[in-house]
C-alpha cells in the first residue's frame, strides 16, 4: 500500500493540476461544439473565450475558475486491500497544501456559522469497493457549486416510468438555465435508495468523457437526453445556442418495487477531474 506521504503529495498535485488544466477531452468537445454554432455568433465567442481561458490558465498556472471547489473524492479499492490508519487525514492534508501552494480559493464553510475553514477541508470522501484484484485509485473532483446548487432529486412513482425520468431531467436543466455554466456534463442517477441515487449521479460525472453506458437501454437514454437537452437552446453560458450539454452520463442501480428515484447533478464546462492510479 502507498505511504501516507506519497498519498498526500499525489492528492496535492492532482488537486492543483485539475484546477489549472482543462482535460484535453473537454477542449476537444469545445472545438467540435464551436463548429456547430452559428458563425460569428455569441455562442462561438463563448467557446473561443473558454478555449483561451484554458490556454491562459495552463500558461500562467492560474485556476480555470475562481471556484476551486469543494473537494469530492472517490476512493476505488478492490477487496482484500487495507486502508491505512491516517488515510483520510493524509487526503485532507493534501487538499489543504494544494490550496496554499496552488493559490486556490478556500471555499469550504460551516453550514450554520458560515465560518470558512480556510483550507478547503474537510474533503468529501466516498468509497467504492470494486471487483478485481489489486486495484486502488483515487478520483478527485474540485466541485464548483454554481453547478452543484442546481442539482435535484425526485422520488418518482414507478408508474412515471421512462417518460417521468426524461421529463424530470429536462425540467431540471431548464430550471437551471444559465446558472450552472453550460455547456454541461449532466450526471443522472436512476434507482437505488435516496442517498444512493444522488451518489450515482455524482459518480456518473466522473465517467470518462466520450464513453457511454454499457447497457444498450441506458446508452439509448443518454443519447436521447443529450439531443433533447440541446434542443432547449439554452446554449453556452445561457446566451443561446445549440450546445447546452456536452454529454449525458446515466448510472442505474436496482431499486425497491415501490420506488423510482432520479437524481440530476451537473458538472460545469470547467469539467475538472483528476484520476490517480496507485495500483
Amino acid at each position: 500500500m502507498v505511504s501516507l506521504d506519497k498519498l498526500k503529495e499525489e492528492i496535492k498535485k492532482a488537486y492543483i493540476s485539475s484546477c489549472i488544466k482543462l482535460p484535453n477531452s473537454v477542449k476537444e468537445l469545445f472545438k467540435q461544439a464551436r463548429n456547430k454554432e452559428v458563425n460569428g455568433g455569441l455562442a462561438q465567442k463563448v467557446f473561443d473565450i473558454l478555449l483561451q481561458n484554458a490556454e491562459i490558465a495552463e500558461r500562467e498556472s492560474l485556476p480555470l475558475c475562481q471556484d476551486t471547489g469543494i473537494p469530492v473524492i472517490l476512493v476505488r479499492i478492490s477487496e482484500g486491500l487495507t486502508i491505512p490508519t491516517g488515510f483520510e487525514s493524509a487526503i485532507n492534508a493534501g487538499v489543504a497544501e494544494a490550496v496554499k501552494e496552488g493559490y486556490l480559493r478556500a471555499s469550504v464553510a460551516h453550514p450554520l456559522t458560515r465560518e470558512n475553514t480556510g483550507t478547503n477541508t474537510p474533503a468529501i470522501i466516498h468509497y467504492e469497493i470494486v471487483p478485481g484484484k489489486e486495484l486502488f485509485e483515487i478520483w478527485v473532483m474540485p466541485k464548483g457549486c454554481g453547478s452543484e446548487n442546481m442539482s435535484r432529486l425526485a422520488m418518482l412513482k414507478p408508474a412515471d416510468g421512462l417518460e417521468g425520468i426524461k421529463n424530470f431531467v429536462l425540467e431540471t436543466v431548464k430550471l437551471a438555465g444559465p446558472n450552472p455554466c453550460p455547456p454541461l456534463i449532466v450526471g443522472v442517477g436512476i434507482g437505488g435508495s435516496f442517498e444512493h441515487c444522488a451518489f450515482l449521479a455524482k459518480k456518473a460525472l466522473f465517467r470518462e468523457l466520450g464513453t457511454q453506458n454499457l447497457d444498450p437501454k441506458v446508452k439509448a437514454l443518454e443519447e436521447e437526453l443529450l439531443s433533447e437537452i440541446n434542443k432547449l437552446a439554452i446554449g453556452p453560458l445561457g446566451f443561446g445556442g445549440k450546445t447546452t450539454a456536452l454529454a449525458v452520463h446515466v448510472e442505474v442501480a436496482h431499486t425497491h418495487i415501490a420506488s423510482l428515484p432520479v437524481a440530476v447533478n451537473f458538472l460545469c464546462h470547467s469539467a475538472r477531474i483528476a484520476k490517480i492510479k496507485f495500483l
Partner: protein
Amino acid sequence: MLLKETKLLRFPLEDKDCLKLLRAGDVVTISGWILCGRDATHRKILNHLGRDFSFDFSGELIYYVGPTPPPPGKVIGSCGPTTSSRLDPYLEPLLKLGLSATMGKGKRSPRVKELLKEYKAIYLATFGGAGAYLSQFVEKMELIAFPELGPEAFFRIKVKDFPAIVINDIYGNDFYEEVASTANFPA
C-alpha cells in the same frame, strides 16, 4: 444570436443617462473602477452601514466575485463571476443608495427585475468559468473593508475593456428570457 457592436461603459458612472442607451443582449466592455463582493461581503456591508461603516454607492457597479489569491507577480488570481441570484435579497438597500449596476452570472428573481426597472439600474453577466481569461482585464486591486472575510472581503478593481453582456436593461427586458423564447429551434 449574432454578435452586436460592442458598447463602452465607464464606472463609476459620471452620467446615469448613459444606461438609457443599453438594451438586453448588448455586448459591452467596462473600464474604470468597479466594486467587488459576494455573500458574506453583502451581509457585512448591510449590517454595518449607517453604524460604523459608510460608503457612497452612487453610480457604482458591484461585481459578484470572490477571486483566487493572487500568485506572486499578479494583480489578482482567477476572477470570474459567481451566481447572482444568491445576492438578490441584498440588492434593494444598495439600489436605494444609488447603485447603478451589478454584474455576475445567471438569472435574477422577478422581484429584482422589478427593482432594476424602478431604480433604473442594469444587470450584466460576464463569462462564467473564464476566471483566468477575465483576470487579464484587471489592472489594480484595492481593499476597501472587511479583510477578515478573505476571498469575500469588500474590494475594488481597476479594469480595462472587461467584457460583459447586458442581461437586464432599465426598461424591463431580460436577455435570458429572450434566449428562452427562441428555444426548441431545430438543432
